């Protein structure tokens, strides 16, 4: 595999203004993505994971300039994407495509598959006008759709088939990088597997590079080379898939991984419950953003922002973590400042108090 860097993101920030007051002045900002840097190599699959609202989709949209980023630098094959003019950017877009989450909203209900695909090719001026229909048929075959379905409208397809149309539309312009924004999370599990296999096959055949945005860790483990874990607009951990799954160093990653169900009833692995909700990205916590929910948090965490860096000297590959105590926790030198199991209120993802619910159930 070539190790050429395809995409490089440096110090990317995406602040959304909150308008308020009589004159519609900017009162505050939602810091959706706050100073993140990473790179993607050619032919690689990099996944971005995190809770909803952590800024993973925003990152994808900012790279494509669907929302203009506030600050930062995005370099694609040596070209500064954010410095391009509108028309230069339009040409550039054929190299970077996106597949959306909702297969029901991502296709224009008034256009047939043929119209959608030919429109994509026309915009990017790909192929001779006469050949475009033939090419559309070929692409349909590539993504596993029947040729006779080419004149159908989106509402005549199932969710999985629609997602294939979405993929076909992205492929129609010969992209190098595809950003898959939760591309399979809206699909049934069996269809998910089919679409994932399709994406992997396309990667092998066409040498595509994926930035895979997801929240399903099982899916991510299956397909990615490297993983980026985001929390509240920041990268907390980034590294090779195997290393992240086998040896998670950030407490947040540990909590995420402990939430993956294990298909073995005898395996009673410790589930780490996080306290409370994700804080507001309008006014994120000082220091380490995770300190409000971290069982290991100390005063240092509340004041000092941890740097994302390689901490584990025994590992040769890439594994960066943004935690002051990553190694100390690993080697047992730093104990939790409060015991998670003894916390009286155990909260699940929706903020519901599980302990109370159980008592209520017993009373009935």
């Amino acid at each position: 595999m070539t190790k050429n860097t395809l995409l490089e993101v440096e110090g990317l920030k995406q602040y959304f203004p909150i308008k308020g007051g009589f004159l519609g002045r900017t009162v505050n900002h939602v810091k959706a993505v706050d100073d993140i840097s990473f790179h993607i190599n050619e032919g690689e699959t990099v996944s971005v994971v995190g809770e909803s609202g952590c800024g993973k989709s925003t990152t994808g949209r900012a790279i494509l300039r669907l929302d203009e980023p506030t600050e930062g630098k995005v370099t694609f094959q040596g070209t500064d994407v954010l410095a391009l003019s509108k028309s230069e950017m339009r040409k550039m877009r054929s190299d970077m495509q996106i597949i959306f989450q909702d297969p029901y909203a991502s296709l224009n209900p008034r256009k047939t598959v043929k119209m959608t695909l030919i429109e994509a090719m026309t915009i990017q001026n790909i192929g001779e006008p006469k050949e475009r229909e033939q090419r559309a048929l070929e692409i349909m075959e590539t993504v596993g759709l029947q040729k006779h379905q080419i004149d159908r409208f989106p509402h005549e397809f199932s969710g999985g088939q629609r997602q294939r149309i979405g993929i076909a539309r992205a492929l129609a312009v010969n992209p190098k990088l595809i950003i898959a924004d939760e591309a399979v999370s809206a699909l049934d599990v069996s269809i998910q597997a089919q679409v994932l296999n399709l994406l992997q096959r396309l990667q092998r055949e066409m040498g595509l590079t994926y930035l895979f945005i997801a929240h399903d860790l099982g899916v991510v483990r299956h397909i990615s080379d490297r993983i980026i874990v985001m929390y509240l607009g920041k990268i907390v951990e980034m590294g090779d898939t195997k290393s992240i799954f086998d040896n998670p160093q950030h407490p947040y990653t540990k909590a995420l991984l402990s939430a993956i169900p294990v298909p073995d009833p005898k395996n009673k692995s410790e589930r780490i419950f996080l306290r409370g909700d994700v804080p507001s990205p309008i006014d994120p916590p000082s220091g380490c953003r995770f300190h409000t929910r971290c069982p290991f948090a100390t005063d240092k965490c509340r004041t000092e922002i941890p740097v994302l860096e390689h901490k584990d000297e025994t590992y040769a590959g890439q594994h960066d973590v943004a935690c002051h105590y990553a190694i100390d926790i690993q080697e047992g030198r730093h104990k939790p400042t409060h015991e998670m199991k003894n916390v009286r209120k155990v909260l699940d993802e929706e903020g519901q108090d599980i302990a109370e619910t159980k008592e209520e159930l017993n009373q009935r």
Partner: protein
Amino acid sequence: MAVASKERVRDTKPVNPRIKSFKEFFKRLRKNKSALIGFYVLAFLLLVSIFGAIDANYNLLGVNSNATSLTEKLEGPSAAHWFGTDHLGRDIFFRILHGMYITLGVGFAATFMGAIVGVPLGIIAGYYGGWLDTIIMRVMDVLLAFPGILLALAIVSVLGGSTINVTIAIAIGSLPQFARIVRGSTLTTKKLEYVDAIRALGARDGKIIFQHILPNIMSPIIVNTTLFIASAILSAAGLSFLGLGVQPPTPEWGAMLNDGRNYMYQAGHITFFPGMMIVIVVLAFNLFGDGLRDAIDPKQKN
């Protein structure tokens, strides 16, 4: 085998959703009795108004509706003059027939002009946002701050009273309504993922607006247009009644109301029949427009 595959192809023949939804739309429209009545009344009136429009010399079925006859003035309804005659002995029935195309024409033209300008303004405001949005919508708010008839009055007093000026005045009054509705729909539509997808493909703004946003916001525009014609007709009649609109002796219904004002107690029919016609036309447009809205989008019912 060959037959079987042929049949399969026929089975899978696509139904254009536009045709399909059009059929469903008519089905829903037919179920709505009042909308259907409105539709038939409008169709009939439009047909009639064509006759009035063809003949500029006010001759219909051998009757000159502009011919005055002092011997027959202020006569009540009779077999010779179905709706009676006015203070100059003109036949009211034929004057109403002739006035029909003016009334409907002003209504249609004003609404059309308002839509032609208001829809692009709304799309630009909604699509581009930012300072463009602020400027356009604040200007619309200013227009909206005047009562419609007052605004039209002011414009007509500046431009002078004539059919075209009345049309322009009413069209200007309709701008905010169109701009607001279109802006709202554009804001909703542009957030849909397929608009993002086409943007990610590198489409120009014009293409996105005309091929992906406009077709998907047509239904509120159509409904609003139908409903606005009714109020445009009312405004036109109101202006003519005040003597600022269409000038006599043109048989505009509002002007006819004004003619009959002085004779209300002796000959109420002079004001009654044109007034009744205005009510019928406005009612028909409103019934049809309401039915159209329910048929196009059963979800939005207010």
